[in-house]
């Protein structure tokens, strides 16, 4: 019995249930403890590994918390100007139509400064994938109000809560792009529980696989927490996300195989 509990017996290939993806590098991630970015990165890495498309994948990073994503994924990557990733991806995919191309963008990048690039890439039906991390705040610059900050939510530039009369409404850009004929798959996911992670990974895989169909753009939104920006403990942040963010941004598929799902 005691023999079985020895470290070398426990850590063996026979007992392996989980390992780091070969697409993830050994660099230590700079994300705050509790943040969803690390999980989202890992899922993308796992899908690239499982589909065996490392040599065929080009990723575009945004300006925002994920600007350094190229330090963590062992694939060729380009770092775009703020909001412009879909324009870069458009060129990459058109010049190399057989490659897998994705952008990874936050809410400020995708739904504020890059709104035009997002909408037009979706509307043209570019055959790449957008991963959209929505945490309702500008994390990297220190927690300012984002286009997706929900009503009454506090941020450093809406310190008394988002007053929609004065500051305007949050932008449901995912629902918006689902209406465009150029999008083929639009879904909203999360990565805060084991179940959510499993569903999110399926969505990421589907979004990558769709690229070979050449039927249009796939967008996977991941509603995520920003415990530092929200000034909450990670567990509290996830609870707050479920109770508040999900009201405004309900998880689930919005458009599948080019068809908008009825709600």
């Amino acid at each position: 019995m005691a023999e079985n509990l020895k470290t070398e017996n426990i850590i063996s290939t026979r007992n392996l249930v989980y390992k780091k993806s070969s697409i993830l590098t050994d660099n230590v991630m700079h994300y705050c403890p509790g943040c969803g970015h690390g999980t989202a990165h890992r899922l993308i890495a796992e899908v690239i590994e499982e589909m065996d498309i490392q040599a065929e994948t080009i990723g575009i990073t945004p300006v925002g918390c994920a600007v350094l994503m190229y330090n963590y994924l062992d694939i060729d990557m380009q770092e775009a100007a703020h909001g412009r990733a879909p324009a870069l991806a458009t060129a990459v995919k058109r010049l190399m139509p057989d490659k897998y191309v994705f952008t990874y963008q936050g809410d400020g990048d995708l739904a504020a400064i890059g709104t035009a690039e997002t909408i037009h890439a979706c509307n043209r039906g570019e055959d790449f994938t957008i991963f959209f991390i929505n945490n309702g705040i500008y994390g990297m610059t220190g927690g300012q109000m984002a286009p997706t900050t929900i009503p009454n939510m506090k941020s450093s530039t809406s310190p008394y809560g988002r007053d929609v009369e004065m500051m305007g409404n949050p932008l449901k850009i995912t629902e918006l792009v689902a209406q465009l004929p150029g999008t083929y798959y639009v879904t909203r996911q999360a990565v805060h529980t084991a179940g959510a992670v499993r569903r999110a990974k399926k969505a990421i895989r589907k979004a990558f696989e769709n690229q070979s169909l050449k039927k249009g753009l796939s967008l996977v939104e991941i509603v995520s927490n920003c415990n530092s920006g929200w000034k909450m403990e990670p567990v509290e942040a996830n609870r707050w996300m479920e109770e508040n963010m999900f009201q405004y941004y309900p998880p689930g598929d919005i458009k599948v195989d080019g068809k908008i799902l009825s709600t």
Partner: protein
Amino acid sequence: MKELKLMKGNEAIAEAAIRAGADAYFGYPITPQSEVLEYLMAERPHERTGMIVLQAESEIAAINMVYGGAACGRKVMTSSSSPGISLKQEGLSYIAGSELPCLVVNVVRGGPGLGTIQPAQSDYFQAVKGGGHGDYRLIVLAPASVQEMADFVDLGFELAFRYRNPAMILTDGALGQMMEKVWLKEPKPRMTEYPEWATTGKTPDRERNIITSLELDSGRQEKFNLKLQAKYREMEEKEVRYETIECEDAEYLLVAYGTSARICQKSVQVARENGIKVGLLRPMTLFPFPKKILREMAPKLKGILSVEMSTGQMVEDVMLAVNGLVEVEHYGRMGGIIPAPDEIVSVLEEKFIKQNYYG
């Protein structure tokens, strides 16, 4: 094969791009250069060479498509006119900061703001001093004929790839719209092999390629800035191009590029008929600027007149080059007005010669 055609400057640029083996063009309509995109769309280059042409949703998107395509090691380009080129400055800064080759054409119109759709040379500072944020330079080519509009496309790509740096053709609405005969070069095939830094997908035989202009470490950023500067010094050493006309015995020198240089060529003739020994220096590269030749000529001259369709921008580079060795004056017309040859001669007399009689 080589072909002789009668074309607009803008069309010559478009046709030259297909023949230079360009992989893609991304653009947005703006007067006076929309013929570039129109010609390319009508010509179906995808069927001729596989070249991609896309009308973007804005000049900003177009330059960022150029950024993405250049990062894949492809020969990519865009064109626009002054207000549109202002919108491209952020993208150009990223492209220069990521050390990527590309070609940008600016068919200049008068400004500031929406300005006029008529020709001007008022974007000189923006083109040769960087334009966007941060310490960087573009390679700037200044054609003075439809022939050079065509020839500089290939040259621009060649220099851009040699130095991994964006190149710009700085021309104006007059050259873009005028028709002249042009010898078109034999088409070059598109590249089939790409530079080792290109993001084409990480294969097992190499490390991943990352295209970025971000560096959070001050020491490394400064080192990178110095590396860029060394590259620009090398361009100044090796890539200066200019033309001299009647300079051997010249007492006075006109310095002008593009459309202004064409007018000045006639001014030289008019002045010489009047007995004034005038020459013309025509920079064909505005960055790197022909500083050395100007400095060499300066001690033999009685005066230099910089003629530009602007309020006086290149004149500063002329002054820096001669560094006080000879008097330098500026003459410019704005708002889309092109100066007449005898007008320039009168100004030259006014500024240097008459002054000497009475002064």
